[in-house]
C-alpha cells in the first residue's frame, strides 16, 4: 500500500510539474513556411537555432532566423528564452524582448543561460533577416545581424507613417523630457507631413 501511495504521489508531482512547464509553443502557417525554407538552407541539425521577433508596427515585423555554432551574439546571449518550438527535429529558441523583463521563475534574478554546447564548426553560421510587411515577405541573408533595431531594407508601403513613427519613437528615447521631444516634433513637422503624403 505504501509503495502504491509513493508511486502515485511521485507520478502526480512529475505529471503536474510537467504540465506547468509549457515552454513549447507552435508556429502558425506563415512561420512554418519560413522555417521550411530556412531549414533547407541549414541541413545540420546539431546547431543552435534562434528566432527573434521584432514587431515594428501594427502590420509589420522583422524576424531574424539564425542557425549557428554559437548563439547569435557569438556566445554572449545571457538571457534564456522563455519559449521554444520543436520543428523538423530541431529546437528553436524564440525571443521577442519579453525575456528581458520577465522570467518563468518567481526566483529573481533570472538564471543565466547555461553554457552552450560547443558544436563542431562544420560550416558558417546562417542568419536570415526577414521583413514581413503586411504579409509581403522579403528574405535577406545577413552575416552579422543584431536582434532588434534593424533598419528596413525594403520599402514599407502598407503603413505610410511607420518609418516616421519608428524614427520618432527612437528620438523620443534620447529626449530627457517630454518638452524636448515636443520641440523636436514641432521642428520636424514639415518633414513628417511631407513624408506622410
Amino acid at each position, binding site marked *: 500500500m505504501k509503495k502504491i501511495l509513493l508511486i502515485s504521489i511521485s507520478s502526480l508531482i512529475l*505529471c*503536474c510539474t510537467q504540465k506547468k512547464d509549457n515552454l513549447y509553443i507552435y508556429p502558425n502557417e506563415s512561420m512554418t513556411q519560413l522555417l521550411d525554407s530556412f531549414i533547407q538552407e541549414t541541413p545540420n541539425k546539431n546547431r543552435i537555432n534562434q528566432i527573434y*521577433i521584432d514587431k515594428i508596427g501594427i502590420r509589420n515585423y522583422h524576424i531574424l532566423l539564425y542557425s549557428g555554432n554559437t548563439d547569435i551574439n557569438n556566445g554572449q546571449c545571457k538571457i534564456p528564452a522563455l519559449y521554444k518550438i520543436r520543428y523538423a527535429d530541431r529546437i528553436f529558441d524564440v525571443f521577442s*524582448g*519579453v525575456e528581458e523583463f520577465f522570467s518563468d521563475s518567481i526566483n529573481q534574478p533570472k538564471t543565466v543561460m547555461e553554457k552552450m554546447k560547443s558544436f563542431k564548426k562544420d560550416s558558417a553560421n546562417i542568419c536570415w533577416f526577414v521583413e514581413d510587411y503586411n504579409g509581403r515577405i522579403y528574405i535577406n541573408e545577413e552575416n552579422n545581424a543584431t536582434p*532588434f*533595431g534593424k533598419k528596413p531594407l525594403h520599402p514599407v508601403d502598407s503603413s505610410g507613417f511607420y518609418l516616421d513613427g519608428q524614427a520618432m519613437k527612437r528620438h523620443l*528615447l534620447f529626449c530627457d523630457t517630454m518638452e524636448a521631444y515636443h520641440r523636436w*516634433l514641432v521642428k520636424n513637422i514639415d518633414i513628417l507631413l511631407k513624408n506622410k503624403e
Partner: protein
Amino acid sequence: MIKHFISITLFTLLISCIQDRKDNVYIEKKLYPNEELRAVLDSFVFENKKLDSICEIYIDNILPEFTSIIIYSGHGSCTGGENIYYNQRPLGYTEISGVRFRIFSGMEHYFNLLENMENAPKITSSDLSEPDLKIYYENFLYFNSNSIWWVLIKNGNKSTLYRNWNEVYPYNFYPNRPVPGVFTVEIKDVCDEDE
C-alpha cells in the same frame, strides 16, 4: 477506509493531470516581472483603484538597449481588433495583487500555445464591444476615455516612467500629442515623468 480514500483521490488527480495534457488545454504561461517592472506594476495597480476588466503589457524592443513598455487597462483590449483580425492570443501573463496582465510582444503574430488551435478559446468581439469594433476595425485603434496608459521607457540603465499617457497604440507611432495637421485626437493632459 482512509487509505482507499487517499488512493482514489490521488488516482483521480493523476488522471486529471494526464487528461489536461492530452486535451491540449490552452494555458497561457505565467511569467514573473523583474524587480523594477514589478515596482511599476505595483504602482499601476495601487494608483488606479478602478482598473478596467482588461489589463495588458506590451513590450516593444526598439533598439537593442532601448525598450518601451506600455501598461494598459481598459474596457476592451488595446489591440482587440488586430488580435481578432490576425487571430492573435497572448502567450503569457503575469499577476500583480490579483490583477491579471496579459503580455504581448509581437510573438503572438507567429506562434500559438496549441498545435491545433481548434481547441483554443475563440477570439470574439467580447474583448471589444461591438460598436467599437465596427468603428475602429479598419485601423484597429481602440480608444476609450476611461482607459489608462502608462509608458515605461528603458534607455540602457536609465528608466523613465510616463503616467497617464493618453491613447497610445503599441508598436505604432506615439505619443499622440496635439500637433495641428498631424493628429486629430485631442490630448487631455501633460505627462508626468519619474526618473
